[in-house]
C-alpha cells in the first residue's frame, strides 16, 4: 500500500492576545505531535471531541495554515517546502469539502460559477464550452440531475442536501487525488445523508480518490471509513481499522464516545443526576501528562507523570494509554 499523506510530529499552536493592552497571551496547542499516514485509495476517518483539532489537522494537511513543528509529506514530498509552481500543482491535486452547506457557498454566485472556479484557476486552457460540459458532467456525478437546470440557480434556491452536492462537485471537478471532507453530512438529515455518503464512497471506489473524513459522529464515520483515528486535545489517542475500533475500542475516551451514542429508547431517558462531572478543559497547554487524565475513570499516578506512548498493541491497532503498557 502506498501512502499519499504522511504527517510527522505535526504541532500547531495558536497564540491569542488576551487582557487589556494585549500584554498577556495564551497558547492553545491545537495539534500536538500528530503522526498519521493516509493510504492511496483509502478513506481515513478522523473523529473526536468538539475542539480537539480535527479541522486544524485537515487545514494543515492541505497547507492552509502554517505549522510550529513537524512536516507533512504528500506523495513523499514535504508540502511545506513546495515552491510556487509545485504549490500550485498541489492545490490542484487537493481539495476540501466544508461542514456547513448553508454558509460555505456564496449566496450571490450561481452554481455554475462556483463549481467552475477550480477549472478557471487550474485549467485556463479549457474553452468555455469545455468548462460547461465538465460542470454538467460533474453535477451529474453528484446526483444533481438534470444538471442544466441547476447551472443558473443560486444556493438559496436549493436545499441543504443539494448545496452539499454542489460543494462536492466543486471539490472534485479539478480531479484531485486527495480530499479533506470536514463534517460533510453533520448538517443533513438521515435521508439526505445516505446519498451524500454513498457519493463519497463512490469517489473512492470508482474514481480512486483518497480522503480524510472528519466527523464527530462515529456511526457515520465507520460507515464510510477504512480506518479511524480518534483525536483528543490535539493528540491522536487511538487508531485502527474501523470495524476493530467499534468492536474493540481500547482507549477510555473512545469507549466513552461509543457508550454515549444515543439509543433510541424512550424508556431510557437521560438522567439529570449524571451532570456532576466537570466540563472539559478544552485547551492543551503541552503538559507532560495523558491528555485525558482529568476525565479518565482509570487515571493512575503514572498517567500524570508522562505522556503515554502511542503504540501498536494489536495488529494495526494503536493506542496511547498506560493501561496497555
Amino acid at each position, binding site marked *: 500500500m502506498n501512502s499519499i499523506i504522511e504527517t510527522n510530529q505535526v504541532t500547531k499552536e495558536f497564540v*491569542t492576545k488576551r487582557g487589556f493592552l494585549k500584554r498577556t497571551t495564551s497558547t492553545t496547542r491545537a495539534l500536538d505531535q500528530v503522526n498519521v499516514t493516509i493510504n492511496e485509495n483509502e478513506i481515513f476517518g478522523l473523529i473526536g471531541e468538539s475542539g480537539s483539532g480535527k479541522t486544524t489537522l485537515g487545514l494543515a494537511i492541505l497547507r492552509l495554515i502554517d505549522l510550529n513543528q513537524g512536516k507533512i509529506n504528500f506523495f513523499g514530498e514535504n508540502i511545506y517546502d513546495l515552491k510556487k509552481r509545485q504549490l500550485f500543482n498541489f492545490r490542484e491535486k487537493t481539495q476540501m469539502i466544508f461542514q*456547513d452547506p448553508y454558509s460555505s457557498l456564496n449566496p450571490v454566485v450561481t452554481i455554475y460559477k462556483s463549481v467552475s472556479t477550480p477549472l478557471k484557476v487550474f485549467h485556463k486552457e479549457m474553452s468555455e464550452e469545455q468548462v460547461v460540459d465538465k460542470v454538467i458532467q460533474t453535477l451529474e456525478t453528484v446526483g444533481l440531475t438534470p444538471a442544466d437546470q441547476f447551472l443558473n440557480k443560486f444556493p438559496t434556491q436549493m436545499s441543504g442536501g443539494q448545496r452539499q452536492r454542489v460543494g462536492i462537485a466543486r471539490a472534485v471537478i479539478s480531479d484531485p487525488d486527495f480530499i479533506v471532507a470536514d463534517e460533510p453530512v453533520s448538517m443533513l438529515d*438521515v*435521508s439526505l445523508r445516505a446519498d451524500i455518503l454513498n457519493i463519497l464512497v463512490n469517489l473512492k471506489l470508482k474514481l480512486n480518490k483518497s480522503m480524510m473524513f472528519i466527523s*464527530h459522529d462515529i*456511526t457515520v464515520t465507520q460507515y464510510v471509513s477504512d480506518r479511524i483515528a480518534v483525536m483528543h486535545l490535539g493528540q491522536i489517542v487511538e487508531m485502527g481499522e474501523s470495524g476493530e475500533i467499534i468492536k474493540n475500542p481500547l482507549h477510555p475516551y473512545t469507549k466513552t464516545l461509543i457508550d454515549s451514542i444515543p439509543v*433510541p429508547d*424512550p424508556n431510557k431517558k437521560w438522567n439529570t443526576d449524571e451532570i456532576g462531572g466537570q*466540563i472539559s478543559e478544552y485547551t492543551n497547554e503541552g503538559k507532560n501528562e495523558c491528555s485525558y487524565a482529568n476525565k479518565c475513570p482509570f487515571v493512575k499516578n503514572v498517567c500524570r507523570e508522562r505522556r503515554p506512548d502511542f503504540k501498536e498493541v494489536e495488529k494495526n491497532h494503536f493506542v496511547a494509554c498506560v493501561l496497555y503498557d
Partner: protein
Amino acid sequence: MMSFPLLEVKDISVEYGVDGKTIKAVSHVNLEINKGDIVAIVGESGSGKSTLAMTFLNLIEKPGRIRNGKVNYRGAKGVVDVLRMRPVDLMRYRWKEVSMIFQSAMNSLNPVMRIEDQLKDVMIEHGTVESAVDAKIDEKLKLAGLTTSVKKSYPHELSGGMKQRVNIALALACDPKLLIADEATTALDVVVQRQILTRLLKLKQDLSLSLVFITHDISLVANIAEIINVMYAGKIVERASAKQLFGNPLHPYTEALLNSIPTLEKGTAIKGIKGTPPDLSKEIKGCPFADRCPKMYDRCLAESPELKNVGDNHYVSCHLY
C-alpha cells in the same frame, strides 16, 4: 386542573414567494406547549420545521409571509398574540420570554466582537444590572459546556462546535421561559451533546424551562422529549408521547424515519427514505406522502387526511386510521 398552554399555535400557515411561485412551507399547523414541556419537532430537511419555529417569535421575513393563524403566548399580563405584538414588546419577548438557537447559527456571531461582549450586550439590553453581568456570563458559558476562558476569544478562534455552544449560551442569556433549539447540537460529538442536553433538562426541572427541540436526529429525541411531532411537507403528520411514537408508530412516514436510524453494526447500510418530498409550490391533492408510501391505496390520492386523535392523545394524519 385544566392547564393553560404557555404557547399555543393556532392554524398557522406560512408561504414563501420565490420566482413567481408560492411555496407552502407550513400549512395549518396547531401546536401547544405547556410550561415545563419538552416538545420535539422532527422531520426531513425542507419539511418546514424552522419556518414553524420562527413563527413562535414572529420572525418570518420576506419573501416569507404568514397566511393565517395565531401564536398565543401566556405572559405575566395574560394571553397575547405574538403576531400582533407592538415592536417594543416583541423585543422584550424575544430574549426574555422566548429565545431561539438558530440552525447554522455557528456563523451568525459577530466576527469582530469578543464572546464576552456579545453576551454582555444582550444581557444589558434586556435589563441585567451591570454588576451582575460578569457572574452571569460565566454561568451561561458553563451551562453551555464551555470553559470561561473562551470569554476573551473572537469567533474565528473557536471550533465549529464551540461556536455552536456560544449560541446556546446566548440564547440562555436572559433566562427565557421557553427555549427553541433548532438543530442546536448537530455539530457536537455525542459526549458533549449529552452534557449540554442533560444540563438543559436540569433547567427544566429546576426552573420549569420549556423546550422545543427541533432536530432531524430522531434517536436523540427519544432520550429527552416527552411529546414528539413528526412533520412532513409543512404539516404535522403524527403527534404522540415518546413512548407511543417509538413503541407504536402509526404513520408510514414515522415508521420509515425510525427505520432509517443508523446503527453501529458494520455492514448495515445507512438507509434513507426512498423518493423525495413533494414540491411545495404545487397543489397537493390527497396525502402528501402518497408517492413514497408503501401502504398507499386509492383513497390516499383523492382525499387529504386530517390530523386526528386516535386515542390516548396519539394523533395521526393517515387514512389507515
